């Protein structure tokens, strides 16, 4: 129970890696609050975990809208108390042609895949600074350091997450707050499924280049995130932790 006594806040907790974090952290003893835009899935998840005896709650929030996001956050804190751990996980894919891409599309994409990590920090840092304790994990991607064709501008946002995490780590270290990014490789999530549907040839390719011949599971990514959040990782900060079955060790 490495998260006993903690209150974890997760964005995009209804499905995929986010869902695995919510479940895994609850099992490690944390109270868990999450936001998402998918009411149906979120409510089902909360009901299931509550029935199993875990402390889990949800508020609908659009993490690209600060007013909406902060009011959901305030409600969550009012029931479970100050947040001690946070995971900025909400995100989506982007496959754009740099010429065709429209400015509104760019703005709405970066609002979700990059800026919402700042919002998470803005919301949870005040209490963490006060208590001189906290750990934040921002979900980046292998695309934060190496990419594949057709991922413009996804990689820019994910690279941004790594840089944002580094600066927060330097600035908040004096308060004992740790900030890291975790970068998954090819992971069997709804996001991956949608990518494979968009680019049908990619599945066989991705499997053929995976050093262990398989994709990761959301649980395997969540295990790493939960470890980095925990006190067992007390000297880990400003790091980008790859969880990709060694894919990033390989070119092509």
């Amino acid at each position, binding site marked *: 129970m490495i998260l006993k006594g903690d209150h974890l806040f997760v964005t995009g907790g209804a499905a995929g890696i986010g869902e695995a974090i919510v479940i895994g952290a609850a099992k490690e003893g944390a109270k868990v609050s999450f936001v998402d835009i998918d009411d149906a899935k979120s409510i089902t998840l909360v009901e299931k975990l509550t029935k199993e005896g875990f402390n889990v709650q949800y508020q609908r929030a659009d993490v690209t809208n600060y007013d909406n996001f902060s009011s959901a956050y305030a409600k969550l804190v009012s029931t479970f108390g100050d947040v001690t751990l946070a995971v900025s996980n909400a995100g989506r894919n982007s496959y754009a042609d740099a010429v065709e891409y429209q400015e509104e599309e760019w703005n709405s994409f970066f609002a979700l895949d990059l800026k919402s990590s700042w919002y998470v920090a803005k919301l949870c840092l005040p209490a963490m600074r006060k208590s001189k304790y906290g750990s934040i994990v921002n979900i980046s991607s292998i695309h934060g350091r190496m990419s594949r064709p057709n991922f413009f501008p996804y990689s820019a946002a994910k690279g941004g997450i790594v840089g944002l995490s580094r600066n927060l780590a*330097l600035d908040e270290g004096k308060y004992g707050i740790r900030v890291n990014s975790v970068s998954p490789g090819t992971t069997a999530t709804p996001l991956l499924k949608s990518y494979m549907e968009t680019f049908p040839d990619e599945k066989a390719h991705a499997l053929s280049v995976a050093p262990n011949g398989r994709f990761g599971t959301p649980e395997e990514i969540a295990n790493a995130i939960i*470890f980095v959040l925990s006190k067992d990782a007390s000297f880990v*900060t400003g*790091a980008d932790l*790859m969880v990709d079955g060694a894919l990033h060790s390989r070119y092509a």
Partner: protein
Amino acid sequence: MKLSGHHIFVTGGAKGIGEAIVRDCLAEGAKVSFVDIDVKNGEKLAAELGSSVKFVKASVASFAELSKAFSEVTAAFGEVTGVVNNAGVNSHADPVTMTDQEWEDFFAIDMKPVWLTAKLALPAMRKAGKGSIVNIGSIHGKLTYPGFFPYGAAKSAVLGLTRNLALDEGKHEIRVNTVSPGYILTDLTKGWLSAEDGRTERANSIQPLGRMGQPVEVAKVVTFLLSDKATYISGSDWAVDGGLGARSA
């Protein structure tokens, strides 16, 4: 108990980060064997920790000694399921005055054993279709500081070795990772810090967390990477440096 049923083999386990790794692996339920050239501290630690820990004197620079030790510990505890390459020494050389022998001696300790232990441990791991190797690198693998020639080269090489081993052994579900500590308060570090006035103060002043790390804080990360909680982590370099690697001078 993350490591129940495991047999973890640690090099340089008598002191410092190695000792902390031996202790944490034991606490997580593993049988732990370790080699070191420091017989006094090795025997003392093994005696303190009891029958699930075995110490054998061996220099990692000698394949003959290392392989003999490896046979002894597998005879006692069964096949090795996890390896931690931790043995190492500092090197602060001038490239002009450094001798060929000094170069050879240094790389024989800080780099080559990563291969030698892989050579010994991989056959059983391949057969089992499972295994985890953790190599202790350093912040010097990516960023360094004046006066660390050729330490940075050896530690960068450990990253390269890790990558290739990870790619080649992945099909056997054998995972290979590096853990790269920053300033950790071991005897090695304390020796370096006290060698010059003001080093300790300067070292603390650049730490994003305002302090240096403890050996156990590295050990906890190593134990995690050895465990079945880390089944999709391979080829990675996990920094345990209190954020120092995120900072430019």
